[in-house]
């Protein structure tokens, strides 16, 4: 759910108006950032651009989130993909495509594959954020940038955590907007990074409104997600996050 979060809630982060704590604890910062991405619930419309050296495609999507477990994403445009949806609930993930008129539960064997052809994997989208508890966090550095304090945090996964990365590094601003999220392999080489390109005030919060995921060894291939509109802390019925709603939208 980390990047659905990206899509729907991470971008909404920004409740934090209070200044940084005097003695910031790395884990607490990460937890706060994660909590702020999510909010209690949200509804947003966003567009995703998948870029390759020889082609590019974009789609527009609606997304609902509730709590830290539930999310639903549905494609509005382009027309031929309209109605394609992804539902996640507590680490499980289902997709629906009107063309085949079938709900498919994503099996574990497909969790590593790309989500809707983007640079995000299914696992990126579906996994509830393990980053708080399954990692050891250290605060590397705190510096000033554009008048705001930025925390640089290194997160190393536990020995038995289901994480392939050697370590991850997060740049989190004092208002808990994640500026950058870098993934390193076990040799310490950068594999991919999620970068925040634009930060805007939206739906009453300061959020990362445009983010780009790119592989380090193929900078010409990236996926960008931009938030168009967003509302949050709204009332969403639980029935939104059901298989029948995934199949038959009742708006």
């Amino acid at each position, binding site marked *: 759910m980390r990047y659905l979060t990206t899509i729907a809630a991470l971008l909404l982060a920004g409740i934090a108006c209070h200044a940084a704590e005097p003695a910031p604890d790395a884990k607490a910062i990460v937890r706060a950032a994660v909590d702020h991405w999510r909010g209690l619930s949200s509804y947003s419309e966003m567009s995703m651009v998948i870029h390759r050296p020889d082609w590019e495609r974009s789609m527009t999507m609606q997304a609902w989130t509730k709590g830290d477990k539930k999310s639903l994403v549905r494609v509005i445009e382009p027309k031929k993909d309209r109605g394609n949806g992804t539902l996640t609930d507590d*680490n*499980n993930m289902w997709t629906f495509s009107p063309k085949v008129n079938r709900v498919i*539960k994503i*099996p*574990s*064997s497909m*969790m*590593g594959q790309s989500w809707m052809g983007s640079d995000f994997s299914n696992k990126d989208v579906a996994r509830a954020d393990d980053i708080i508890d399954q990692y050891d966090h250290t605060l590397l550095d705190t510096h000033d940038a554009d008048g705001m304090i930025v925390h640089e945090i290194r997160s190393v*996964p*536990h*020995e*038995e*955590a*289901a*994480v*392939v*990365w*050697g370590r991850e590094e997060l740049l989190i601003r004092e208002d808990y907007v994640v500026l950058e999220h870098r*993934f390193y*392999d*076990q040799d310490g080489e950068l*594999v991919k990074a999620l970068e925040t390109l634009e930060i805007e005030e939206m739906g009453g919060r300061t959020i990362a409104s445009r983010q780009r995921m790119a592989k380090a060894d193929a900078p010409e291939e990236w996926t960008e997600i931009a938030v168009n509109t967003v509302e949050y802390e709204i009332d969403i019925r639980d029935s939104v996050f059901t298989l029948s709603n995934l199949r038959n939208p009742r708006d």
Partner: protein
Amino acid sequence: MINTLRILTMLAWRNLWRNHRRTLIMLGAVVIGVWAMIFMTALTMGMVNDMIEDSISALPGHVQVHHPDYLDDPNITNLLPLPEEAIADRFRSAGFLAWATRIKVPAVLSSERESRGVTLLGIDPQREEAMSFVDYSAVEGRFLEGPDDAGIVIGRKLAETLETELGKRVVLMSQDPDNDIADRGFRVVGLFSADVQAYEEQYVFAGKKTVQDLLRVGDRVTSIVVLGDDYRDVEPVFAKVSALVDDGVTVSRWMEIDTYLGTMLRVMDGFVLVWVIVIFLALSFGLVNTLVMAVFERVREIGLMLALGMKPSGILGQIVIESMMLLVTGLTIGNLLAWATIKPLESGIDISVVAEGMAMMGAASVLYPQLRFEDVILANTVVLILGFFASLSPAWRASRFQPIEAITRVN
């Protein structure tokens, strides 16, 4: 009677060498034919044998016990309905060569850059040492140390594909019986190599206890595997295992689990016969031709013998004996030649040049020709019997000559 036979034999032998050049050429053809039959059969049998033994070692176990649905759907929901302890109680004292319980399920292994579908084997390494296709001592790093080992052992080729290496972490993902995702990080503690490259990509080993915890199955397993003495004769083990388990499970022989292999074993035995007959058909044209020529050359002579009172059956016998002599001589030399070429090769022929192709067929890159007595007997018998029938036709024609016509025939 004996006397006639003696005369006929002498006549046949002398006739055979009257045109020794033609006879030698025919003899050469028979020798090469027989050599090819036996040599090629030995190569094929060697390859099949290798393939079967390799594949059985990967099963492993000549007899296996599963949930009735497991073979159709090797899924973690199809667990054996017996806890491990109960199984051990029954099998411990049964006196098998080797037996083990294991968990074998499909899984996905991912590194930072790649992920691959694999077959996860949760094993107790001590129990399986005798039956595994992995040579524990040849593992780079170390093999698993016990059922609760926290590491994972993967094939060298898989490590290459995943761009990972010894000492790095990989993530193993599978499903638990409730269809929920079960995943965990493992450190690669060993890299194994296998004769068959495909196994290096397909199988990953982890401790049985560790896997049971990961998949949340308690003390259950998916399979019991039992090793017998000879893979061609699994019935005694099968009967013994069947007596030990309850009704709710399926006991299968290896040829039922890998029906492809079982069929192959049977097809190959049939194939040897077909191969021998095909070569013989080619040979038989030469043989019949030689005999027909010999008969045509001797039309007047045969007419004379008939006129002098030799019975038609004597003529028939003479020509059949002639052909038999030719074949027996050819067979003897051919057999010796085949034996002489196979013996020095029995230590193995290195065919690593085409190893990749062989690996696709599931065969190893060293070929051990296998000379089986029954194949030699088969080839010889087929040649003699069919040779006998092939020579009947010219012999029959010769014996039907009218003496008067034959004597006056001008060649």
